[in-house]
């Protein structure tokens, strides 16, 4: 598979789309812009759209976004470089992300990372020579109960080991279909994924499971034990913690425990924030 060169000396980025591509991207962009009250909101999905075309946020893609939305290319680049999912070099067919945030790292994510990096011969944000895999260390992906977690093109591969992750990448590089633990029936390409993230449904929502084991463990345990939330018609006998049933006579006020305004005021901004909240609270009292 060929991958467009990024900043390889002697090679240049393609500078423009041909007419047909441009017309297609323009139609897609119009559909994106129509979803929002103000067109600039279309920029993030449009950058996903650019990646669905070029496999990264290309200079011509940035120029296209800028001209479509009436922005400068600098303004578009400023946004594109802020978000980690926008790639500044041509991405592999599959982004393989190993969670190495604390929980996954401790449970084995570091071991998976070490093994995969050796196995593939690439480091963070680097792509294998065949263009198949871009390897990344990723942050928490909200699946800690399935740790250690690997994501492939942002589909969940739960409860991984170094061997399972290496086998996964071998299959991807061999072009064999790979199924996530929780997700569609097979992993799609980076470009196809990017098109979905631009808001163009690929019709695969009904594929795969609704939940994995850890997600439903409480649901099943409760059913097994006969534990239920109080029923809607007034049965309040179950599931009430000790301090429970008293009516909530206290109305918590802004700035109480857990609020960011909980800390002592240290600057003028703090004081006026508090004043603002008090003002809002009194407005609120008047309304209710």
């Amino acid at each position: 598979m060929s991958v467009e060169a990024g900043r390889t000396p002697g090679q240049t980025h393609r500078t423009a789309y041909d007419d047909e591509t441009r017309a297609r991207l323009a139609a897609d962009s119009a559909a994106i812009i129509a979803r929002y009250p103000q067109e600039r909101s279309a920029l993030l999905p449009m950058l996903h759209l650019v990646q669905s075309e070029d496999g990264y946020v290309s200079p011509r893609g940035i120029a296209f976004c800028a001209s479509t939305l009436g922005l400068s290319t600098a303004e578009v680049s400023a946004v594109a470089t802020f978000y980690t999912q926008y790639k500044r070099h041509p991405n592999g067919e599959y982004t393989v992300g190993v969670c190495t945030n604390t929980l996954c790292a401790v449970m084995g994510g570091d071991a998976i990372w070490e093994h995969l990096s050796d196995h593939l011969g690439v480091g963070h944000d680097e792509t294998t020579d065949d263009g198949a895999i871009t390897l990344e260390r990723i942050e928490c992906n909200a699946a800690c109960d399935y740790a250690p977690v690997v994501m492939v093109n942002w589909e969940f591969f739960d409860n991984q080991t170094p061997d399972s992750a290496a086998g996964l990448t071998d299959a991807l590089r061999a072009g064999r279909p790979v199924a996530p633990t929780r997700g569609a029936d097979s992993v799609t390409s980076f470009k196809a994924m990017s098109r979905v993230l631009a808001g163009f449904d690929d019709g695969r929502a009904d594929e795969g499971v609704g939940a994995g084991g850890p997600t439903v463990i409480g649901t099943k345990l409760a059913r097994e034990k006969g534990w239920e939330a109080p029923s809607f018609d007034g049965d309040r006998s179950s599931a009430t913690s000790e301090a429970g049933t008293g009516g909530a006579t206290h109305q918590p006020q802004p700035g109480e425990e857990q609020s960011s305004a909980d800390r002592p005021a240290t600057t003028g901004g703090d004081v006026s924030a508090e004043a603002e909240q008090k003002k809002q609270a009194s407005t609120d009292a008047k309304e209710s």
Partner: protein
Amino acid sequence: MATTLAPVLSAFWDADRSWALETYEANGGYRGLRRALEMQAPDVVTMVKESGLRGRGGAGFPTGMKWGFLPAPDGGPRYLVVNADESEPGTCKDIPLMMASPQHLIEGVIITSYAIGCHHAFIYVRGEVLHVYRRLLKAVEEARAAGYVGTDILGSGYDLEITVHAGAGAYICGEETALLDSLEGLRGQPRLKPPFPAVAGLYARPTVVNNVESIASVPGIVVGGADWFKSMGTERSTGHGLFSLSGHVTNPGQYEAPLGITLRELLDMAGGMRGGRALKFWTPGGSSTPIFTAEHLDVPLDYESVGAAGSMLGTRALQIFDETTSVVRAVTRWTEFYKHESCGKCTPCREGTFWLAQVLQRIERGQGTPADIDLLLDLCDNILGRAFCALGDGATSPITSAVQYFREEFEAGCHTPADVLFPPERSALFDYKPRKALAGVHA
């Protein structure tokens, strides 16, 4: 009386095609919307206020009160924006909720929008969960086909559009004003408050920003009433919540229970600690909440009790670490996360998290100096409360609390690497032989 589980949102997550509209309706879905549309909008706000529902995204701000902060209608648009950017380390409740039963959220969005007079709602979901995004797009279309979204909803004359928007990878966009900037097509950086989003939010219009679980809890409140919701939980922390157990626990996963349940009770349900090992430390609500230890097993997990014990309930992300785990390693990794995710707008956070990471990395390598612990605490003091948003504050929480409870481990970092004190292979779920020195992991 021991607390038991109380599945409301999670009641049918194991059903066949749990995400489908017909499954949701077969389990009582959209009764809340029908009831809400028969009520006056302000009465829905009052009902949610009276339920005592507090924000499930971490801060615990009363949800109904937030709605009440919107100024009186001026004829212009007002917006609901759902924060589905779940990224706080350890937090893993909204993503499985939206994958398993997205209609809970969609019905909540419609009811909430009706209550606050919004006609265009947004769901900002992080971009790193492809299948969840697919499920949300489909859920909106199913709701539209059933007449729950669009014009003249269920013949009420009320109109609503819902746009599901995918982010692009930035933890900071979970901060509500950064999220709004991101949704406007900008770099996701927090805004100075005031004005609060209620006054000038999305496109500078009155806006409510709520967490997924908060909004998903609204239909139940409308059907069951405020007293039903208050029959669960404690006096000031009412209702049900998802408790997400992860780490060195036998059966990690989602446990939906009344607020006020304890970790001891939850651990019992989850089969105890892995291999019977001892609990060392845990987070009550994600990495930004100060850590707890075994002495906090009986702290009721409600906003007040956790706060009184020196932490925050946060997102109920219970990351559990046993005696094999180096607290220095854990805290260093979290700090690297905050360093990576600091948006760079405020100097104390941008520079401070870099300093913190460098100092912690040398402690983890066993190359700390005797002055490093004081340096860490001084840095934390210079970050806490000195930035626009809470990211910097959150970065200090694991450090100051870990030094409080495990100072000797940081002192040991002056002479012994963390992976010598606590060989990482003992913490992992499988056998392996570490092949790189610690420095390699951070390179």
